[in-house]
């Protein structure tokens, strides 16, 4: 007992404020800023380096649905037209809003009023990993720990889709998980939300084009919130969901 108390005191209070007071370290590769004005004509050095064909030039455009945030384009660009910032806020309601063309951030719009009334203060989710490498799942798991603690915002993972208000899905949706994902979706009572997490779930990511995957969640079930990253930082996921629930302005 004494040991337990001593430990409790030593460990201290660890739950992080949200939004956090301290910014993420500058090394973290978060929301990119693009400066298309700096591009040289007919230069495509960034394009050849992009592993997932997320980039276009003339005009410069970076699709966060495909981006794995490896930073290869930032390093390849002689003009510093691409810069990954330490801003973790990146989610979007529509997939086309994930196309970054300049340095202005896009923020998620909240749900409409009736849905906010239903989900705004309590959102129960069932997680489905569908061909993910487990990276995104680990970050969703981390949101339940004492540091990020999303349960303080009323967000919780439940064991059954029947108890859930929606799904949080990771992975490019392997063919072998397609049926299981559909069935899990059908088991969630209407109205229901679907949150797709990570480059694979958004576009197939690095597995796009493989015949053994469906190329993301949207081809299989409708998606309400897209959270980019490889994997997204837990703060990116939390920020996206809280904006959806109108809990952050």
């Amino acid at each position, binding site marked *: 007992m004494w040991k337990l108390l001593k430990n409790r005191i030593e460990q201290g209070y660890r739950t992080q404020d949200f939004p956090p007071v301290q910014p993420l370290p500058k090394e973290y590769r978060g929301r990119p800023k693009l400066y298309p004005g700096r591009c040289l004509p007919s230069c495509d050095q960034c394009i050849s380096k992009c*592993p997932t064909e997320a980039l276009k030039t003339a005009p410069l455009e970076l699709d966060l649905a495909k981006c794995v*945030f490896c930073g290869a384009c930032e390093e390849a660009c002689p003009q510093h037209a691409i810069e990954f910032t330490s801003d973790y806020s990146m989610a979007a309601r529509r997939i086309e809003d994930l196309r970054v063309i300049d340095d202005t951030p896009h923020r998620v719009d909240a749900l409409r009023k009736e849905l906010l009334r239903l989900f705004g203060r309590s959102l129960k989710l069932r997680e489905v990993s569908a*061909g993910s*490498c487990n990276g995104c799942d680990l970050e969703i798991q981390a949101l339940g720990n004492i540091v990020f603690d999303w349960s303080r915002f009323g967000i919780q993972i439940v064991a*059954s889709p029947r108890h859930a208000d929606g799904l949080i899905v990771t992975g490019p949706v392997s063919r072998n998980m397609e049926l299981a994902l559909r069935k899990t979706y059908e088991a969630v009572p209407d109205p229901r939300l679907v949150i797709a997490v990570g480059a694979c779930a958004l576009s197939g990511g690095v*597995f796009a084009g493989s015949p053994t995957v469906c190329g993301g969640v949207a081809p299989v079930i409708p998606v309400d919130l897209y959270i980019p990253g490889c994997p997204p930082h837990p703060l990116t996921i939390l920020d996206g969901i809280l904006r959806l629930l109108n809990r952050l302005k």
Partner: protein
Amino acid sequence: MSASPLTLQNGAAVSWDSLPCLELDRWRTWILETCAPPASSDIAPDAAPVKRTAAPDTLPPNRRGAPSLGRGGRMVALWAWPDSEGFRMYALLAIDSRQTLQIACARLPSQPRAYPSLTPQLPEAHYFERELHELHGIRPEGHPWLKPLRQIEGIPFFQIEGESIHEVAVGPVHAGVIEPGHFRFQCHGERVHHLEIQLGYQHRGVESQIVAASPGRQMILAESIAGDTVIGHGWAYSRVLEGLAGRDVSPQSERVRALALELERLANHVGDLGALATDVGYLPASAYFGRLRGEFLNLLLELSGNRYGRGLLVPGGLNRPFGMAPFESWQNRLAVIHRQVESTADLLFSSSSVMTRFEYCGPVSSEAARALGLVGPAARACHLARDVRAHHPWGIYRALPFTPQISRGGDVLARAQVRWLEIQQSFNLVAQLLESPELAAVRTDPLKWLQPSAFCVSMVESWRGETIHIAATDEQANLRHFKIVDPSFHNWMGLTMALRGCQISDFPLNNKSFNLSYAGHDL
């Protein structure tokens, strides 16, 4: 012509033409003789059950003892690659006591595409032979359970028949936040007689995609084999290409890589101890370890820009330059984390309610572990000293003093203890690496070319165990074949064995104590 198996070094390329091709019969005999189970005197007998408690800093005497290496070899990989005349089967064996790897191949007859199965005499070939059959239609005649590994439909499960026998099916979607897999329990009353694990839900086709991808994309694919083993797989992939290119990596880069690998191990082992605490309902350790795991991920973030170390490695060296500056504060920060991990482990291992759940839960005998070819902490908990860092060291591990950490009993407690011992060892390794004046590294240029007709095997001891990447180039020096063996591939059968005689309610605890990768298995 009488060829004999070729001896290989971990990470050193050989010419494709030098791979010996044996007669099928001789090839089989070589495998069976090299991997023959050791004489019974080689296996350390498990101590008689004695009341065991586990103080965090020491192992009780009955959990100690000289590790058993055995004289014989073990199967690292068995696979087939097509050539112009059909298929060649390759076997890669490790003889840990002699620190060597051996390889030889055999040509398969085209009709019928079959050979006498190795599994009846050598159970560790079991999964590999199922894979051969699934991928290439090669039939190992006499295989006891020739079922596809990654195909999920229309396949019967092993069933026990009889009065009062019942079957429980779980998955692929589970109650927690974990990867998908299907578990089929055959029970009589509370007792589980057999568990069959059907995976394949995470199959994405990594091996075939790597061969076709651009170099930049290959690296991202390698990092995405198992999202918790980014550095382990990333390093194995980098080394196999460095071998094929005949390129040396600077010692500075190797040090930063080892630092990242040990941080990855720390993050996962600490997280696993927390998850074990969660599964027995011991919330203080669960909460503290859960938070402490994140501290290591945040250090990896400072190193690489990503919490899992993505984007740090590149074949040839490192993707970003380092000065000493980022490491200056690390010694002190790690000392604080170390102290907190230590006191939480003390809390966990001195709680009698935790020990009651851990002890004798899901035991795997040394004999079973050896027969199934277990690797990593799961093997070391069964008193098998298998660790690539000790027996096939690579990079900076050749220079670091290293002894594998082992325990006995093969139960949940032993698997927890091995993790705790390795956590302490990794803290030491990290401290040694940070003391080095050679830690600063420069950004390396990516590899420009590979050698033509070359073959290379790269083994890395990631936190889950032996992680293997095998690759070969064609005459034009393009990547032609790629084979990946994640440690989970060997170890899933270990979980099956552990559960025999347990109750279903012990499954989550056992599953967590192995913590295997579904994605790494399914590829």
